[in-house]
Every structure is written in structure tokens, then in C-alpha cells.
């Protein structure tokens, strides 16, 4: 049986790649390979996953330099006999393939990501028109599952510690377009503050990397436009 060479990051921020040889199989994802190494070669290898079918987003890692969901990445599709697997970029490393995602999640909070409503259970539900432009904008951004792949793909995140990043800003965009959200002004203020949308270069690394095909780039462009309008006095937030 032919074998595949896998280089896996071991350690935390300090560490090195360790090479393993894994049998090549007909149908094999990067996550399968990591699991096989952990089960049959080195049980101390740490990594994260849950669903194994592209639902939860917890298996994200750098595969040959690109952030991907490892359970949705077939070894075959990489077209390479050597696969290099590292923890997600732009996050502190805890051990091996496991990163500390708390900074990433904190940025969601800083981008005003918490939905708030002024209504309670006695009020009638808001009638949301699914075909209104704002709802369509919110819908286009709303499926994000916080996997961090786009955050890892973004160069501006790696250059600028205060930048909130594509995922947090994408979330802010879906909220400022949600007519039920009562703190749109606060969300907008966070999204256009110093770490906000003005830092984005609009080159779309995040969009190219998102495993479910969302476009944080487009969301951020929407935020930029809204910010400029509000600075010019014509805000409709």
C-alpha cells in the first residue's frame, strides 16, 4: 500500500513539525489522517473535531498553508504526496493542532455581535419581509458558524492586533441589517471604530477560504459604505 508523508505541528507557539507515514486510502480526508496518526502512532497528539461531516466547524486547521475544514478536505484533492498540517493561523497555539480561540471570540463581542430586542413575549413578532434588501443582506451573511477559517486567512488580522477580522464584522453586518436588533447604532459604532471595517483591504482571502461560501468581504464592503454615509450625515442605520 502506498504511503503518504504527513508533517504535523507539535508543541505550542514554540515547536516543530513531526513527520508521520500513513497508508494512503481510496477515500481519505485530512481529518482521517490526523485521527489515524493519533490512534495508531502517537496518542499524545491533540486536535479538535466533532461532527466529521462539515457541520460544526471545529476541525479547522492549516493544510499545506491554507485554512480549511479538515473533515471536508480530501487528501486526493490536495494532489501532493506530502501534507503539512498546522494549527489555525492568527491564533495563539495551545498544543499541537489546538489553538486558543478566545481572542477570536472576544473580537465578536467587540464588534457588537450580541442580538438585542426591545420586545418581549407579549409583543407580536415583527413581520420580516424576506424579500426586502436588508433582510437579503442579513441572510447572505447569517449562516456563519464561527469556525475561524476566514480569520486565519486574513493578512490584516496578522498585521494588526486590533483588527476585528472578517468573521466578527460579517456578524456585525447581519445584525445592522436585522430590523429586530435594537442596538444597531452600537453595533455600527463598533464596526466602524478603530479596529473596524476601514482596515479591510477588500482582497477577498476570507471569502475564498470560507468553507460554506460566505463573503465577509462583501459584508465588510457594506459596512464601509454605511460608515461613510453615516460620517457624511446620511445614515440609515
Amino acid at each position, binding site marked *: 500500500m502506498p504511503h503518504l508523508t504527513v508533517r504535523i505541528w507539535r508543541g505550542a507557539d514554540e515547536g516543530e513539525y513531526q513527520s508521520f507515514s500513513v497508508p494512503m486510502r481510496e477515500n481519505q480526508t485530512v481529518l482521517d489522517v490526523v485521527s489515524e496518526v493519533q490512534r495508531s502512532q502517537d496518542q499524545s497528539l491533540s486536535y479538535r473535531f466533532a461532527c466529521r461531516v462539515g457541520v460544526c466547524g471545529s476541525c479547522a486547521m492549516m493544510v499545506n498553508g491554507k485554512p480549511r475544514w479538515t473533515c471536508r478536505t480530501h487528501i486526493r484533492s490536495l494532489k501532493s504526496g506530502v501534507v503539512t498540517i498546522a494549527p489555525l493561523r492568527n491564533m495563539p497555539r495551545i498544543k499541537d493542532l489546538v489553538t486558543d480561540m478566545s481572542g477570536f471570540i472576544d473580537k465578536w463581542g467587540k464588534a457588537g455581535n450580541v442580538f438585542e430586542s426591545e420586545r418581549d413575549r407579549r409583543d407580536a413578532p415583527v413581520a420580516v419581509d424576506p424579500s426586502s434588501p436588508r433582510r437579503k443582506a442579513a441572510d447572505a451573511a447569517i449562516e456563519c458558524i464561527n469556525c475561524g477559517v476566514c480569520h486565519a486567512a486574513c493578512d490584516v488580522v496578522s498585521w494588526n492586533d486590533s483588527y476585528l477580522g472578517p468573521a466578527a464584522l460579517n456578524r456585525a453586518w447581519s445584525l445592522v441589517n436585522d430590523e429586530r436588533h435594537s442596538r444597531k447604532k452600537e453595533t455600527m459604532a463598533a464596526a*466602524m471604530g*478603530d479596529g*473596524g471595517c*476601514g482596515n479591510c483591504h477588500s482582497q477577498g482571502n476570507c471569502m475564498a477560504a470560507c468553507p460554506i461560501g460566505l463573503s465577509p468581504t462583501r459584508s465588510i464592503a457594506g459596512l464601509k459604505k454605511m460608515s*461613510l454615509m453615516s*460620517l457624511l450625515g446620511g445614515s440609515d442605520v
Partner: protein
Amino acid sequence: MSNPMFEMRLYLLQRLTAILMLPMVIGHLATILYATRSELTAASILERTQSSPWLVVFYTAFVVLVSIHAPLGLRKIMGEWLRFSPKLANRISVLLCLGFLGLGLRGVWALTGAAMP
């Protein structure tokens, strides 16, 4: 910065100057093409530019816009690529702005000096 919208305002300023400069760049290129294609001598070009108040206004505005726009872009590059601290990048940007203004306005003066009031 004390004002949380400081960065966004600079961003706005950079976009606005870009929009204003776009037609001016075209005007500037057209002027250059005209001047070089029409076989004018340097002396006759200067003769024309020095008698045109319109050119003073055009190039003074152009220089001011460039002096705002370019340092703002360089400021981002200094922060992101060269990892300069915000304070250092701000200081260098102000110096660049003043430098561009000085050089540019001196050029305008040389080209159009006689047309100045």
C-alpha cells in the same frame, strides 16, 4: 486615538481625496500629453503656464489633495508591513504631508509664478 472614529475619518478623507483626484489625474495627463506632443519648447511651455491663473488653482488643489492622500496610504503601509508604532507612523505621515506640500507648492510656484497675484 481618543476619538474612536479617528481611523474611519481618515479613511473617508482618503476616499474623498481619491475621488476628487481622479478627474485631475486625467486632466494632468492630458496637459502633459498636449505639451509634449505639440512640439512646444520648454520656454514656450513656461511662457504659457506662467500666464494662467487657472493652472495655479488646478495644481495647487492637486498638490493639496496628493499631500493628504499619499501619506494616509503610506501610513497604513508603515503600520501593517513595517510594523511601525501608530505614533511613529503618524509622525512620519505628517512630515511626509508637509514635505509633499512644500515640494509640490514650490513646483506650482516655479511653473506658474508669474500668474500669482
